[in-house]
C-alpha cells in the first residue's frame, strides 16, 4: 500500500522554498539573522516531516517526465520513498538543522550580507542532499550529486578572500568532477543498454536475469568512480583534507555526515546491480579498506584538529565502502548513520574549541578540559564512539562492518580494517590528550561555548549514546564470529593505551617512534606525495598543454591565415607596378597583348 507522497515532497520542498526566497529576495538575504531564521525555520519543519515519514515507515514511488522525447520521456524526476531513504531524510534534516543553529553562534561575527549568503547556500545544500536520497533513478541522483558538489564548492569557498579557501573549493570541485566523469559515462552506457535510468525498472530487470549485458562490470565500475570521488576513496581522497578551509559547521555537515556519504548511499541503494558484478564489489572492498588504513596513518601525524577529523572521515568512509563491497551493505549503511552522528559531534566540538582558542593547531592547545569541561565531555563521547567502545553507537556499526567483511572471506581488507581500528583509537586519543589534557598553552581565555553551540553538541552526544543503547538492545547480529567483539574492543583499548603512553604519560617518546618509523612518517607527513602528484599533473600536464595549444592556435593556425593575408597584400603591392600612370607603358601593354593575340590566333588555325 503506497503512502501519500506529499509528506516526503514537503520535506524536500521546505529547504527549496527557503533557498528561492533567500536567493531572490535580496533585502531578506542581506539582513543576516533574518535569513538565518528563514532557513532554520524551514529546516525545522522539514525535520519534523522527516521524522513523521520515518516513523510512519512510508513507502512510495512517483515520477514525472522531465526530458521529453519521441518515444516517451528520456529522463524523469520524482521520489522513491523507502526505509533507506527515510533514514537518510532524518539524518540529513537533523544534522542540517543542528548545524544551522550552531552556525548562528559560530558565524556571529560575519557581516549580515555574508551570513545571508551562507544560509542561502545551506538551504540549497539541504534541498540538494534530500533530492539525492529521494532519487528514483540514476539521472536524478546525478543531478543532485552535482548540486551537492556545487554547494560544497560554494561553502568551502565561503571565505573566498582567503587564497587557501578559494583554492580548496576549486580543488574539491575538480577532484570530485573526475569521479563524476566516470559516473556520467557509466549511466550513459547503462541507459544505452537498458533504455532506462530508473532504479525499480533496473532492479526488476536484474531479477528477471534480463540484465545480462556485456560490459556490465565496466559500467558499474564507472558508476562506482563517482562514489570514489564523492566519498573520498583512494586516489580521489585528496580534496577532503583541504576542504577544511571552510567553516567548521560546514565540515560537520557536508564533509562528515551527509555529502561525502552520498557515494556510500549510492552503492547501497543500487546494491542489486552491484551484486551482479562481484569483481567490482571485491575492488570496492579492497579500495575501501586500503583508503581506511592510508587515511588513518595520515591522521596520526596531523597537527590540525580539523584535518585529523577529515582524515578520520576518509578512513571511516573506507569502512563503509568496504562493508558494501563485502556484500554487507546494511552494515555499511548503519555505520553511515552512526558515523554521521558522532563525526558531526566531533566536528562541532572541535569548532567550539577553535572558536574559543583561535587556532586549529592541537599543539597550541592543552588542558582545555578544565576550561571547557562540557565541550571536553562531548568530545570524549565522540572519540569513544569513533574508537568503537560499547555501548556507544560506533561500536555496533563498526563491529557489523568487521563482521561483514570477515563473512565475505576478504582477509586482506579485514586485516587492514583491524589495523585501522587500532590506529583510529590511537590518533583520536592523541588529540584528546594533547588538546584537552596536559599543560595549558592556549593563548586567550578559552571559555565554554555559547548555548547555541552547546545545545547541538549535547543533543548529538545524547543521540550517540541512545542510539548505541538501542542497537545493543536489538536482536544480536547472526553469525558474527564470537571473537570479533573482544577483538574490536581490544584493538580500541590498545590504541588508547598507546596514545596514553605516548602523550599523556610520556612513557614513550613520540619523536623516537617517528624516527623508528622513519620512511612511513616521512611519507605520511607529505600525504604520500599524492597531492603533489595531482598538483604536478595539473600544472604540468593540463596547464602546460593548454599553453601549448593556445600558442599553436594563435601563432600557427592563425599564423597561416595571416600569412595568406600578408601574401595577398604583398601581391597587391607588387602588381601596383603595372599601373605606372604613364600612357606609354599602357600602349606597350596593348601592343604586346595584340602581338600575343595574333600569334595565338595563327597557332590556333
Amino acid at each position, binding site marked *: 500500500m503506497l503512502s501519500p507522497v506529499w509528506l516526503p515532497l514537503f520535506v524536500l520542498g521546505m529547504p527549496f522554498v527557503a533557498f528561492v526566497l533567500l536567493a531572490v529576495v535580496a533585502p531578506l538575504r542581506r539582513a543576516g539573522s533574518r535569513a538565518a531564521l528563514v532557513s532554520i525555520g524551514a529546516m525545522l519543519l522539514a525535520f519534523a516531516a522527516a521524522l513523521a515519514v520515518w516513523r510512519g515507515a512510508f513507502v512510495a514511488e512517483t515520477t514525472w*517526465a*522531465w*526530458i*521529453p*522525447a*519521441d518515444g516517451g520521456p*528520456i*529522463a524523469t524526476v520524482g521520489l522513491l520513498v523507502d526505509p533507506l531513504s527515510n533514514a537518510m531524510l532524518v539524518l540529513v534534516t537533523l544534522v542540517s538543522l543542528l548545524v544551522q543553529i550552531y552556525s548562528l553562534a559560530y558565524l556571529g561575527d560575519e557581516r549580515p550580507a555574508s551570513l545571508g549568503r551562507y544560509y542561502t547556500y545551506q538551504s540549497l545544500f539541504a534541498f540538494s542532499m534530500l533530492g539525492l536520497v529521494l532519487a528514483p533513478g540514476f*539521472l536524478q541522483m*546525478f*543531478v*543532485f550529486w*552535482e*548540486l551537492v558538489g*556545487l554547494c560544497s*564548492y560554494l561553502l568551502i*569557498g565561503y571565505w*573566498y*578572500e*582567503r*587564497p587557501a579557501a*578559494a*583554492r580548496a*573549493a*576549486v580543488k574539491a*570541485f*575538480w577532484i570530485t*568532477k*573526475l569521479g563524476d*566523469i566516470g559516473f*556520467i*559515462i557509466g549511466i*550513459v*552506457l547503462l*541507459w*544505452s543498454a537498458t533504455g532506462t535510468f530508473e532504479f525499480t525498472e533496473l532492479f526488476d530487470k536484474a531479477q528477471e536475469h534480463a540484465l545480462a549485458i556485456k560490459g556490465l562490470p565496466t559500467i558499474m565500475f564507472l558508476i562506482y568512480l563517482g562514489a570514489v570521488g564523492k566519498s573520498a576513496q583512494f586516489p580521489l581522497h585528496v580534496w577532503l583534507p583541504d576542504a577544511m578551509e571552510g567553516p567548521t559547521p560546514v565540515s560537520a555537515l557536508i564533509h562528515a555526515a551527509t555529502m561525502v556519504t552520498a557515494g556510500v548511499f549510492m552503492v547501497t541503494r543500487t546494491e542489486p546491480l552491484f551484486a551482479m558484478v562481484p569483481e567490482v564489489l571485491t575492488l570496492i572492498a579492497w579500495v575501501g579498506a586500503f583508503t581506511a588504513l592510508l587515511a588513518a596513518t595520515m591522521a596520526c601525524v596531523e597537527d590540525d584538529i580539523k584535518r585529523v577529523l577529515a582524515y578520520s572521515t576518509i578512513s571511516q568512509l573506507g569502512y563503509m565502502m568496504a562493508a558494501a563491497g563485502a556484500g554487507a551493505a546494511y552494515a555499511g549503511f548503519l555505520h553511515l548513520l552512526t558515523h554521521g552522528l558522532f563525526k558531526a559531534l566531533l566536528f562541532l566540538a572541535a569548532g567550539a574549541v577553535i572558536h574559543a582558542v583561535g587556532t586549529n593547531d592541537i599543539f597550541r592547545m592543552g588542558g582545555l578540559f578544565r576550561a571547557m569541561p562540557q565541550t571536553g565531555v562531548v568530545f570524549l563521547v565522540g572519540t569513544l564512539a569513533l574508537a568503537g567502545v560499547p555501548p556507544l553507537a560506533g561500536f555496533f556499526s563498526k563491529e557489523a562492518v568487521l563482521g561483514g567483511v570477515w563473512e565475505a572471506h576478504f582477509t586482506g581488507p579485514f586485516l587492514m580494517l583491524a589495523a585501522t581500528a587500532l590506529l583510529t583509537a590511537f590518533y583520536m586519543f592523541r588529540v584528546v590528550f594533547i588538546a584537552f589534557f596536559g599543560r595549558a598553552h592556549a593563548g586567550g581565555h578559552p571559555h565554554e561555548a555559547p548555548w547555541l553551540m552547546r545545545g547541538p553538541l549535547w543533543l548529538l552526544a545524547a543521540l550517540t549514546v541512545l542510539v548505541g543503547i538501542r542497537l545493543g538492545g536489538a536482536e544480536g547480529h547472526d553469525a558474527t564470529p564470537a571473537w570479533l567483539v573482544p577483538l574490536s574492543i581490544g584493538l580500541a583499548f590498545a590504541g588508547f593505551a598507546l596514545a596514553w603512553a605516548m602523550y599523556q604519560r610520556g612513557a614513550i617518546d613520540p619523536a623516537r617512534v617517528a624516527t623508528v618509523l622513519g620512511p612511513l612518517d616521512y611519507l605520511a607527513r607529505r600525504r604520500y606525495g599524492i597531492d603533489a602528484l595531482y598538483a604536478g599533473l595539473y600544472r604540468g600536464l*593540463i*596547464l602546460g*598543454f*593548454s*599553453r601549448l*595549444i*593556445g*600558442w599553436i*592556435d*594563435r*601563432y*600557427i*593556425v*592563425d*599564423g*597561416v*591565415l*595571416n*600569412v595568406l*593575408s*600578408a*601574401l595577398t*597584400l*604583398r601581391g597587391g603591392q607588387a602588381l601596383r607596378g603595372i599601373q605606372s600612370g604613364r600612357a606609354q607603358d599602357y600602349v606597350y601593354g596593348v601592343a604586346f597583348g595584340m602581338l600575343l593575340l595574333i600569334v595565338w590566333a595563327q597557332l590556333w588555325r
Partner: protein
Amino acid sequence: MIRQVLSLVPELSIITWAPFVGALLIMFTARHRPRAVRWIAAVTTGISAALSIRIYATYDQDVAGFQFYEKIPLVPPLGISYEVGADGISLLMVLLTSIIIVAGVFASWTVQVRSQEFYALLLALVTGVYGVFVSLDLFVLFLFYELAVLPMYLLIGIWGSSGEVRPRGIFAWAFRETGVGTKEYAAMKLTLYLLFGSAFILVGILALYVNAGAASFSFLDFEATAFPRALQRWVFLAFYVGFGILAGIWPLHTWSPDGHASAPTAVSMLHAGVLMKLGAYGVVRMGMGLLPEGAADLAWLVGTVACVNIVYGALSSMAQTDLKYVIAYSSVSHMGIVMLGAATLTGPGLNGSVFQMFAHGVMTGLFFALVGLVYEKAHSRDIGKMGGFGKTMPGIATAFTVGGLSSLGLPATAGFVAELLTFLGAWRSVHRWWLFPAVAGTFLTAVYVLRVAKQIFWGPPSSQFHDLEDARGPEWVALVVLVFVLVLFGMVPGLAIAPVDTATVPLLARIVSP
C-alpha cells in the same frame, strides 16, 4: 505531412522586419536624439520578442512541418519567392535571437559615440538573422545571410576595441604586416572569412538549384527532390565548410576569438550567441535536411572535427589572459558540442544539439554582457590584474558564476540537459568513441571556468583596482533575463525540447545510415 496554412497575421514577417523598420526610423527621424534612438530600438526588438514568445506558445506540437507559413513570389521565372515558415528548430532559434537582442539593446545603453548608426546597423543585422532562421527560399536565405554578415565590418571597425598581440613564431612577419590586434584587423578578418564561407554556400545552393531543374529555390521543393548521392556528398561538404566557418569549426575558427574580443558588447553577444548558431543551423537545416545521404556519409567528418573543437577550444581557453578571449574560445568549444550532437544522427543527439544552440546562445550572451560590464567598470580585460571582484560587484560575480556553471554542464542549468542529450546521442551513434572527448571537454571546461572565476571574482582583492561598482539600472535587465532563462530551461527543459522534437524526428527519419 507538411502543413502550409497561410497564417492570418504575418507574424514571422513582423518579427523579421520590425527591427529593420526600427533601423530606418532611427536613421531618418532620430539622428541626433540618443534617447529616442534607444527607445525605438527597445520597442522594435520588444515587438519581435513579444511576437516570438507568442508564436512559440501557439506552435502546434502535434504536427510536423512548417507553421506560420507565408509566401510572396518575387521573381517567378527564376523561382525566387519570399517564403517563410517555422518549425520547432527555427522557432527556438527565433526565440533565442529575441532574448539576446533585447538583452543586447539594454547592454548597449551606454554607447556614446554615434549611437544612432550603431543601433541602426545592429537592428539591420538582427533582421538578417531572423530572416535566415525563418526563410524557406534558399535565395532569399542567402540574401538575409549576407545582411547578417556585412554590418559586422562597420560595427567592429568603428565601435570595437583594439588590443595588442606581440608577433611571435615563424610567421611573425605576417603578423606585423597585417596589423594583428587592432579592431580594424579583426573586423576585416571576420567579414572576409565569413564572406569566403558564404561563397561555398552559394555554390552549393546553385548546384542544387540547377540539379533540381532550375525551377525553384524553395526549400520545400528541394526537400521533395532526391538528389544523386555523389552530388549530395560534395554539396554537403560545401555547406559544411561554408556554414561551418560561421559555426567555428576547427581549423577555420580563428576569426572568432579576434572578432569577438574586438567587438563591442552587444555585437559580441549577438555574434557568439546567435550568429554562430546560424552556422550550425545551416548545417542541420540545409545540409542534413536536404541531403540526407550526403550527411550520413560525411557525419564522421563533422563529428570528428567537433571533438577536436571541444577539446582544443577548452584548452585554448585555459591559456588565455584576456577575458574576452577566454569567452571566445569557450564558444568555439561549445559549438563543438552542437556539431557533435548533430553528427550523431540520433534523436537525443540532434535534440541536444539544438538545445545546446539555445543554451549556449544564452550563456555566451550572458558572458559577453558581463565581460562588457567588467570592462566598463575596471577598464581592463587582463585577468592577471584582476582579483576579488566578488566583493565589490557581487551581482556580476554571481551572474558570471551561474553562466560558468551552465557552461560546465551543472544540472539545473540549461547546459546540463544539452550535454546529457549529446552524450546519450554520441554513445548511440555509429562512432561511439565520440562520447569520451565530449566528456573530457566537460571536465576541461570545469577547470578553466572555475579557475577564471576564482582569479577574477572569488579570491583576495587585487591592489590595482579601487572603487569598483556593481551593475546598475538597465544593465541589470540583461543579466537577470539571461540568468532566468538559463535556470528556467535547465529546470524545465521540456519547454524547448518538445517543439524541437517535432522537427528533429522527421528530419532524422529521412537520413539513411550508411
